[in-house]
């Protein structure tokens, strides 16, 4: 990356010194990304100068808030190559997937219909389908990991696809950093007559998701993993599947008219949003995509990949460390899971934290993947655009020291 120093300066938190005097090294980007000042300021600016409820704007503030809200929707949709009318705000990826389960699946699937998932899915793309299975008797099929290749078993996928109605697939694994062959999966699924829901919670921070080109039926997103705020995300959905949806959350906004006798709803995505909008959050996310639009994603990818390869090569040289990810592979991003043979993941986390390194440890909301890997938990570093080679080197030397002294 050019100008990584300048870029880092845009993120106030990156100059944070921790209570133990160590500078923060933030390697927990897959859990949530940090936010540039432009995002933080966009939200404060809203509250400080034009906070108002949106829509039915008959006063200046409401007009300003509505305009900002709608312009954020346009920016966000455009960033993902989608029309604003194909974007439904949710509180995040989890709610987006639940929205598919409630508004689409409950109306279009019935007993015996099959949903194909993978062992690599985040709980957010597992539990809603298991719940639906309990409720209406759909069949849930899990495509296993090919443990040799540490990749989805595509033969098993082909097999599982047979007669299935829906495929739920994680774009990029939050544990292994592996990007699945989404294009193939979508093509095969559509050929076989299945709709595809892509969990792009991780993917959206690492490549430009182009909704129309990608051709998925549904894409679930979280703002907070891509420089945006907490509390907001979205479901992208095609006109076709939107036309098959029924209402989910109901109340104001989504209605056309309400009377004691009954109510009628608006069409398409408008039917699926209700209540006071997440106005500040949408404005913040809009600022985040504006910020990301200035980033060369190819350059970012190369940068992250370089760091990840440096990290994983270094880690593999340390006695006792087992690395589950392989950043050298083209379909890998900057997330690396690892474990030490003798130092438990919890102890490792604390010892790294002592050095100022924020890494995540646990099951990463992916218990089936932990089961497949035969582990209870992993340590995980996840790198993003503002991480530096110095940070990686300092991480490696701290890790080496830990392994030597505590291994």
């Amino acid at each position, binding site marked *: 990356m050019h100008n990584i120093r300048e870029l880092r300066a845009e993120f106030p938190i990156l100059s944070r010194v921790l209570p133990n005097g160590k500078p923060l090294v933030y390697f927990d980007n897959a859990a949530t990304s940090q936010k540039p000042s432009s995002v933080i300021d966009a939200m404060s600016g809203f509250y400080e100068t034009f906070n108002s409820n949106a829509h039915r704007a008959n006063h200046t503030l409401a*007009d300003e808030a509505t305009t900002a809200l*709608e312009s954020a929707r346009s920016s966000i949709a455009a960033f993902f190559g989608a029309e604003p009318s194909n974007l439904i705000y949710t509180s995040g990826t989890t709610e987006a997937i639940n929205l598919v389960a409630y508004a689409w699946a409950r109306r279009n699937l019935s007993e015996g219909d099959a949903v194909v998932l993978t062992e690599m899915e985040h709980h957010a793309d597992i539990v809603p389908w298991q719940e639906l299975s309990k409720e209406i008797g759909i069949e849930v099929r899990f495509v296993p990991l090919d443990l040799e290749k540490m990749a989805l078993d595509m033969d098993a996928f082909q097999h599982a696809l047979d007669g299935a109605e829906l495929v739920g697939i994680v774009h990029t694994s939050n544990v292994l950093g592996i990007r699945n062959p989404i294009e193939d999966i979508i093509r095969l699924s559509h050929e076989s007559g299945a709709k595809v829901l892509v969990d792009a919670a991780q993917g959206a921070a690492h490549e430009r998701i182009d909704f129309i080109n990608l051709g998925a039926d549904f894409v679930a997103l979280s703002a907070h993993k891509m420089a945006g705020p907490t509390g907001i995300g979205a479901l992208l959905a095609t006109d076709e599947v939107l036309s098959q949806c029924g209402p989910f959350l109901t109340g104001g906004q989504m209605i056309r008219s309400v009377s004691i006798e009954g109510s009628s709803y608006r069409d398409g995505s408008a039917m699926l949003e209700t209540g006071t909008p997440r106005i500040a959050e949408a404005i913040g996310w809009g600022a985040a995509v504006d910020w990301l639009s200035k980033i060369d994603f190819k350059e970012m990818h190369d940068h992250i990949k370089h760091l990840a390869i440096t990290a994983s090569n270094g880690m593999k040289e340390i006695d006792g460390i087992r690395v589950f990810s392989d950043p050298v592979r083209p379909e890998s991003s900057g997330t690396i899971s690892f474990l030490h043979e003798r130092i438990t993941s919890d102890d490792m986390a604390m010892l790294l934290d002592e050095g100022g390194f924020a890494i995540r440890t646990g099951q990463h909301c992916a218990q089936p993947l932990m089961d497949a890997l035969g582990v209870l938990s992993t340590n995980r570093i996840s790198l993003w655009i503002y991480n530096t080679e110095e940070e990686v080197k300092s991480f490696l030397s701290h890790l080496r020291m830990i392994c030597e002294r505590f291994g």
Partner: protein
Amino acid sequence: MAERTWPEALDKVVQAFENCFDAMERYELLFEYAGNTEMTLPPDHWNDENMIHGCQSRAHVECSVDELGLFRMRGGADAQIVQGLMEITRIAVDGSSCEDVAALNPDFVDAMGFRSALTPSRSNGFMNMLERVRNEARRLSGEFE
């Protein structure tokens, strides 16, 4: 006066608004235009087809071409401000070619001092009305050819 981007027929209108002392006087003038009901679309002609969406109150517009191929419009609205803006739009486009109507620039509203009517989210829906009129002009010009 900035560079004129509106039909000559509006010059006098814009001028009159520019001469107003303050916003309230401008609104009074707008209400006067709204009161000119001669050319409005009477409520019994209001229907779902000619309704303008995106207005909080009701607004309707009917567009046609006369035997000479010139654009004609009549508008009707509940609210006086919308009615006034419609009447002024009517002055701007009535009797013009459909091509000119399709290209109508809304700057005159700004020049008249109603900039706030120009943001799409305003509930008075002026921008929706204008878009409707331009689209109708486009459609009618196609029909006429």
